[in-house]
């Protein structure tokens, strides 16, 4: 039998998704017998040329993690798209934009300014900023162009399947990969390795009355490990987020941050969470309502921690 040809690549990401694959541990060995990894820059030295050399459509399935934040990310995404029969957005960044997409609350100029000029540890008297091209003695040097707006993978290429998670949890990953090996697949566009119901559905915490009298942040309290965090005043994205992760954050007494992304029918994860949360505000008067709303620090960062690029507005007003 011919082995399934698999490629892995990372775009703008922390690399956690690569680790998620290592998490398979010994399963990797069995995997190696079934599949044939043709491209995986994170662990083996590949050049663009190696990828370019692969005939179009020769790869069975390519897993791309990371958001699209620069021209290289986009170039490789397109290249892999051409070379692969199936393209999978792997991990929250590829699916939703992820943490890198929080850059959409600012702009390239601001990011450059703080990274290359303002930060106290920076020593850059000429205020030199990254140039895409530079004439050096060796010839023209180029680095990728940094984008103003971070995109999800499917905002630059056609994507067949989505595997959310920051990172996707181990057992889900192996399940997903074997799904591809066995070729038993749902219709195009499906989300794999995640539940269609919200995290609340699998959450073991006890819910009593759906009311929030005040908002507290995790560092301000040691939450009761038995009770629903939302009812303790901690903003937990669980109600608006796909389950399937095994609620590991909640087991660690930490609220869900929303990395598994919006629910199947929800138009916008952040908007939905905002509505759900404020709906159960325990406030009647104009003042109390305002007070509660004000106590939600950084709504965008809270409700769109992983989903900004995938959201309705996608970024702050340019």
């Amino acid at each position, binding site marked *: 039998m011919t082995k399934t040809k698999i490629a892995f690549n990372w775009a703008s990401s922390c690399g956690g998704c690569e680790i998620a694959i290592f998490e398979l541990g010994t399963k990797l060995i069995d995997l190696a017998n079934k599949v044939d990894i043709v491209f995986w820059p994170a662990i083996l030295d590949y050049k663009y040329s190696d990828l370019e050399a692969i005939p179009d459509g020769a790869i069975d399935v390519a897993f791309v993690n990371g958001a699209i934040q620069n021209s290289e990310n986009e170039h490789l995404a397109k290249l892999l798209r051409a070379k692969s029969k199936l393209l999978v957005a792997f991990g929250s960044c590829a699916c939703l934009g992820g943490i890198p997409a929080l850059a959409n609350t600012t702009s390239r100029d601001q990011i450059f300014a703080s990274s290359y000029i303002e930060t106290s540890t920076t020593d850059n008297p000429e205020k030199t900023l990254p140039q895409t091209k530079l004439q050096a003695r060796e010839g023209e040097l180029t680095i990728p162009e940094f984008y103003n707006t971070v*995109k999800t993978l499917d905002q630059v290429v056609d994507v067949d399947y989505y595997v959310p998670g920051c990172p996707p949890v181990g057992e889900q990953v192996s399940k997903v990969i074997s799904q591809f090996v066995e070729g038993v697949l749902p219709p195009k566009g499906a989300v794999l390795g995640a539940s269609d119901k919200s995290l609340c559905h699998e959450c073991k915490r006890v819910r009593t009355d759906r009311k929030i009298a005040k908002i507290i942040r995790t560092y301000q309290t040691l939450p009761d490990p038995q009770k629903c965090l939302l009812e303790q005043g901690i903003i937990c994205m669980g109600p608006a987020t796909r389950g399937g992760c095994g609620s590991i954050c909640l087991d660690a007494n930490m609220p869900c941050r929303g990395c598994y992304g919006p629910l199947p029918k929800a138009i*916008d994860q952040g*908007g*939905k969470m905002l*509505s759900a*949360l404020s709906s159960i505000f325990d406030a009647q008067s104009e003042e109390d309502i305002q007070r*509660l709303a004000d106590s939600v620090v950084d*709504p965008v960062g809270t409700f769109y921690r992983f989903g900004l690029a995938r959201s309705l*507005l996608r970024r702050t007003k340019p």
Partner: protein
Amino acid sequence: MIQLETNFEPKIVGFLCRWCSYAGADLAGTSRIKYPPNVNTIRVNCSGRVDPTLVLKALALGADGVLIAGCHPGDCHYTNGNVKALRRFRLLQKMLDQFGIERERVRLEWVSASEGERYARVVRGMTEDVRSLGPLNWKARVEAVA
């Protein structure tokens, strides 16, 4: 980027509660009170029906403003749907501030069934505010800075 088009006519989506504000708008009609035609209304049973997501969607689709109008607090036909609308709206406002969307563009107003004049005033005021802010044109804006 976005050049201000001359004689720009704001496009405003209005969610009106059936019992107070929609009736108020009708009263403006029966009283023949004139106001600008920039708000097209969607009749909902209660301002509490208006999901903030729909507001975001309207803006993303290209609306220059969104008006939500309901009964005055205490007068809600469904006891306190308008209070729930207010809870959502206040938090939404805070988030829209972060997105850089001017407060004049998204408004929650109380208009009772007897306040035709007030409805006309609200529409006039909002249309003028949004007009002076210029088009929002969200999609184009975002793509312009890709």
